[in-house]
């Protein structure tokens, strides 16, 4: 429904939007960038966990 100016399905009158390949490409790129950022968060979470593990090792092996 309501994609790029296509309308009428399900009674959504007058849905407006950019048309043509340009905006659609930019939309796809924007979604890809968002998903890429979210994937980056997985890596960041692992980094944070690695820091916790490092402190735990130091705590229990060296400075207990």
């Amino acid at each position: 429904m309501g994609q790029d100016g296509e309308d009428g399905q399900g009674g959504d009158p007058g849905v407006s939007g950019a048309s043509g390949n340009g905006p659609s490409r930019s939309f796809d790129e924007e979604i890809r960038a968002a998903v890429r950022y979210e994937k980056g968060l997985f890596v960041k979470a692992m980094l944070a966990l690695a820091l916790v593990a490092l402190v735990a090792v130091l705590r229990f092996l060296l400075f207990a």
Partner: protein
Amino acid sequence: MAHDFGAAAEWVLVALVILAAGPQLAGSWQFLLVAVHFRRNHYAECQPYFPRTAILIPAWNEAAVVGNSIDHLMSLDYPEEALRIFVVDDASTDATPEVVAAKAARYSGRVVHLRRERGGEGKAHTLNHGLSVILGDDWMQALLIMDADVVYERDTLRKMTRHLADRNVGAVTAYIKEGSRPGNYLTRFIGYEYITAQTAARRSQNVIGAIACLAGGAQLHSRANLVLLGGRVDTSSLAEDTFTTFNTQIAGHRVVFEPHATVWAEEPSTIVGLWKQRMRWARGNFQVTVRFRRLWFHRSKGHHLGGINFGVFWFCVFLLPFFMITASASLVTLYFINFPLAWRTFHVLWITNAATYLFITTFSLLIDPATGRRVWREAVLFPGLVNLAVIVYTCFPRLCRWATRDLFRLLQVVPTPLYAHSVILLIYVWLAVSMAAAYLAKLAEPHKFGKIISPALVYVAGYGPLLCACTFSAYVKELRKAEMKWDKTEKTGKAATPV
């Protein structure tokens, strides 16, 4: 027999102390879910979608901010003909009517000024006034509810509407960022808090499929959703946005958080202002907890609000002040009846706290590095200087003992056993006492040296305990059935996008 009873009592006390680690562990689990948001999100169902959107702004004495907000909305990256702004002026006594009228004249046909002659009933009533007008004709396909002071980035709205292309989605919310410039210590604490409570917590809520709250400053609804909700928001509580969020999901519509749609808001720069705001939120959450009491931990086919994850997250925040108080009381009791057990239990609690603190703080700063660069000091000191010292001691006890010994030697002080036990007792009670110390920051603020003493107390006692103190106070008010008053947060127009 008496011995058995004593042992059982000791283990109950140990359990009450360990229970205080629950919110931290739940918080860590929530942050681990953020890490899998790339797998469980709504982007696959998004489409470029630009419904005719009505923007509803409730305004009571917002002359300082509403004009700027309207100007920003008019420059959104969104089809001009698909956007209309409805400002509901709630019988303002300042220049709000003139400001809105001037904008209505400037953006003819795109800004509508609605006036309530009898105001002061609260935001929900103001919203309902606008809703009745907007739903009165069929132009509107989507409705954005926002606050008068918030500033939208150019792409925020279209990043939100793309989720409404999926008919299962009833509402979308965005990432509210603290945007006061120049800010102060308190707005920086709030900036960090919003990384954890908004962009992190709501990502995890996307993952479990249950959203706790559509931010009052950025909630986008499909028309179908508003119709399903009866065309009005709840007026019986102080948390109309949370009620709307729950009712949307109970009605079978999905709610989505869009972390890449950013909205900037001016947040309180004084503890008194923050206290008023959080008092409203905490009392609202209390009302939500009671009103939806049959929902918790009861699975339903239509929504995930009754899931274990969501229930645990909700109640860990809801009961946090009580966890802190019972943990302190239990530790002190154990100290007197079984000192070694108290010491071991304390270590288990704080090793857990230290690990979760390290994980959550590091990950939060990495989730939103731009905000993180501005607020990292407040992130580190979020639990307060005393709790931070305990965390450091828990992580590196031998190093801390060396350092303390050297310090005493330098000061030529010989620590006595009495001194050591006093410190231990102080640390045991600190979880609860930190809330009282943070409350003192609120009391001190309006006084002569408040500008120095209050921030110092917040840094020592912690911003987290300050919020807990406010929450505790809100529950007491709620249980005493104190009058519900819509204490509006004062805005001065300091919020700005960074560009």
